[in-house]
């Protein structure tokens, strides 16, 4: 089969790989029909995630058709169209039994602090991902869900991570009616978080970024008030000014490890790998939210330490909430919102790239060329 393969920082190629095999009785092999590049894939692409091995296939956002199932699979059969959450999870451990599907304890031998994620380094379990023609899907009776007949493929693939994560991030922000919510980052997760904040009754939604074309999208897609932090000496002070010096009730970090806005923070983390991530957006979130407010962290960070302003968080009495999203918990409600016309996930898709050209796809997304917001990957076989 053809598959994207990592060749070292900033380098990927497409090459022949063996079609994955059933390795466990509850495995399925899925023929991928559509995949995506996630902003967090860029952390792997840039060599930031420890134990990212040359030869690995990335991709934790994908949908497809079941090709084979293992002997114990009961809920799926070959030919089923499925959407696969980015979480690999067993459904039966302490954490899964409590709904914490992103924190499964039975799928990642490499780390206890991280659950299982498709195509996301050995630190996330060493599973090949879906930027390929075929992918192994463990626990086929637990993770994958059938794609409803009425749902577009592009909407379905965005439900496997980006939309679910943005919606989850808004929930962690604990939004109450009339709250002022500030979202750092106008990438896919930030756009969805901003949109979701309205569903939860926000009274004002503010989005911060430095890419004007993404802020334009935040206004049109998420009805948000936007500010380009490059235009202000100090974005935290500006946020205080526009909230009568109170600060936002809740802040959502939808940027994560490669945040810009502070050269030293960015270079020490994204380039020199001396921090788990550049906490610029997280620190702005801590400083711009009001005392007693909530910070929701959806941005992905590496497992190393980062220079986060915990003193300010403590002194302000903040609630910091975070996790990888337990995707499947979000689906029933998100299906309703899509059917009701409240959300149209595929409105943020900007590029549809054949798998064979995935190296260009990574470069376009990484370098923010061509007003790229969300690139989808179309495998050769589909």
């Amino acid at each position, binding site marked *: 089969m053809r598959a994207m393969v990592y060749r070292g920082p900033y380098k990927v190629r497409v090459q022949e790989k063996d079609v994955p095999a059933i390795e466990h009785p509850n495995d399925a092999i899925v023929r991928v029909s559509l995949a995506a590049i996630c902003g967090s894939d860029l952390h792997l692409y840039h060599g930031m995630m420890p134990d990212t091995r040359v030869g690995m296939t990335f991709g934790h956002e994908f949908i497809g058709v079941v090709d084979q199932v293992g002997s114990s699979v009961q809920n799926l059969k070959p030919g089923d169209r499925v959407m696969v959450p980015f979480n690999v999870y067993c459904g*039966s451990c302490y954490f*899964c039994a*409590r709904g914490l599907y992103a924190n499964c304890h*039975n799928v990642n*031998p490499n780390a206890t602090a991280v659950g299982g994620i498709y195509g996301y380094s050995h630190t996330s379990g060493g599973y090949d991902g879906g930027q390929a023609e075929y992918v192994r899907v463990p626990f086929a009776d637990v993770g994958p869900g059938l794609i409803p007949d009425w749902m577009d493929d592009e909407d379905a693939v965005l439900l496997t991570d980006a939309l679910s994560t943005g919606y989850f991030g808004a929930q962690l922000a604990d939004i109450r009616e009339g709250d002022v919510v500030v979202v750092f980052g106008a990438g896919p997760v930030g756009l969805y978080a901003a949109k979701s904040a309205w569903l939860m009754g926000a009274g004002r939604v503010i989005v911060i970024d430095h890419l004007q074309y993404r802020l334009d999208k935040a206004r049109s897609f998420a009805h948000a008030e936007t500010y380009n932090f*490059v235009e202000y000496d100090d974005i935290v002070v500006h946020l205080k000014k526009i909230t009568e010096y109170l600060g936002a009730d809740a802040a959502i970090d939808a940027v994560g490890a490669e945040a810009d806005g502070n050269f030293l923070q960015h270079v020490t983390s994204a380039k020199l790998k001396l921090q788990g991530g550049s906490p610029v957006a997280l620190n702005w979130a801590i400083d711009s939210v009001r005392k007693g407010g909530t910070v929701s962290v959806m941005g992905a960070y590496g497992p*190393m330490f980062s220079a986060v302003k915990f003193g300010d968080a403590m002194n302000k009495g903040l609630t910091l909430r975070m996790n990888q999203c337990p995707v499947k918990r979000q689906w029933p409600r998100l299906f309703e*919102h899509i059917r009701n016309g409240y959300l149209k996930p595929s409105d943020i898709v900007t590029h549809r790239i054949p798998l064979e050209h995935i*190296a260009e796809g*990574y470069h376009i997304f990484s370098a923010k060329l061509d007003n790229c917001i969300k690139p989808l990957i179309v495998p050769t076989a589909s």
Partner: protein
Amino acid sequence: MTYTAAKPQNAETSEQLRARIPGWGADLDPDDRPSVPRERYDPGATGAHWDFPERQPEKWPRERSPEHKFLTPVFGTACPPRGVSGAIRKYAYTYSEGRAAHWLLLIAGDRVDAIENHLTSLLTLHPDNPITQTGVLSEFTRHGVRSRLGQRRTDLKHQALDPVIVVGPWIAAGAAAYLTLRKLTRGSRRG
């Protein structure tokens, strides 16, 4: 205002927002949201029909965190450790996730892995190609200049470092090859 008890007013009321924004307030009740409460004990809801999953065969000694009691029943089988990078990675897994040594060794292993694979690719019919593999040609087809010029993008301050990261391993590999060749040549002259 902030210095008195009242909360600053928003520009729009809930009614105005409900009229302007599709779905406003559809999830208004904080207790009726999919991830509330965070932990909801319901083992029957996942589709799992086992108490503990059957174990996947271990085809090679699978590296694992010492914070795990045993090898997890299911695991990824991509890219088994090999070469010098594999040795570094196996050693890294003797340290717990709480130790910086664990992560720093893994990052060092990643860099060695990239160099090992670049060098060995040169001996194959499909050598690494930094032009096609970086996708840099899309600079010409996807408006590389227009995407940056006049945009006041703050990431442009550090994008100049990216080529150093890409080319660096090639320079290191070239230097290593040159030094090795020179040593071998000198050795054969002496012989």
